[in-house]
């Protein structure tokens, strides 16, 4: 893939985004905003654009939280592509591998104070994206999310 990135700013073209941003808290919102704009330009519905926004923000937050200070991987890289009505967003970073829970977090245990209330990010990513691949190699992490354009449902009004 051609390298199109411009550090911090990134570049958008009709086919995709390839950008690198600093792994500092708060940067996830700008990355999510870029992904959201790209999803909009691809023709996704407003509801799906919101899903993209939340999933990307959580994936980037996760990457930022797990980035090692001495990582040789520079910043967080976000690569977005859109082919045949499918949006693929890959968040790449350098850092500690993390455990990907198989199960949905136990809300009841959290409400009852038996578990800490946090721990929803990966669940949100997995639920909002159509498909998620976690690739964790020593020193490099990747969370690749896939979103397919869905037809907008028409709602009927009940009397």
């Amino acid at each position, binding site marked *: 893939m051609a390298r199109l990135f411009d550090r911090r700013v990134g570049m958008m073209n009709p086919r995709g985004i390839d950008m690198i941003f600093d792994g500092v808290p*708060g940067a996830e*919102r*700008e990355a999510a*905003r870029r992904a959201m704009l790209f999803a909009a330009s691809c023709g996704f519905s407003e*509801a799906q654009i*919101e*899903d993209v926004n*939340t999933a990307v*923000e*959580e994936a980037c*937050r996760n990457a930022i939280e797990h980035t090692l200070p001495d990582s040789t991987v520079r910043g967080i890289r976000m690569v977005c592509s859109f082919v045949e009505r499918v949006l693929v967003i890959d968040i790449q970073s350098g850092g500690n591998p993390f455990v990907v829970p198989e199960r*949905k*977090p136990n*809300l*009841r245990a*959290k*409400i*009852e*104070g038996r578990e*800490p*209330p*946090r*721990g*929803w*990010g990966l*669940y*949100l990513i997995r*639920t909002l994206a159509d498909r998620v691949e976690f690739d964790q190699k020593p020193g490099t992490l990747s969370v690749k999310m896939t979103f397919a354009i869905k037809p907008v449902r028409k709602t009927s009004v009940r009397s």
Partner: protein
Amino acid sequence: MDNSVHIATEVSGSTGVVRLEGRIDAGVEEALLTAYRELAHRGTTRLLLRFASKCSINSAGIAVMITMVSQSRKNNTPVGVFGLSDHYRKIFEMIGLSDYVEILLDEDAVKRFTG
């Protein structure tokens, strides 16, 4: 990017109302729990969270909501939620929070909740 959040409280009958506007994340935990405790101290027995239309909530903000619901359940205080966008209503349902709070869809439902 704007990270500000605005939290305001008021009492309506026996209901403590918390108005939320902006970004709900881990940074609001202390302010929100303080607001809840103050409302409880004023004798309110129900809690209404009113979200402004431009509110956004991330996973850390969800954790804050869970802490708040957890505390209110200990005090037998029912929680109503009004103003969530379709997206966040879907997320509340996905994670199961809608089983622990009453999602209020319109002002009539708010009136019924607050009594």
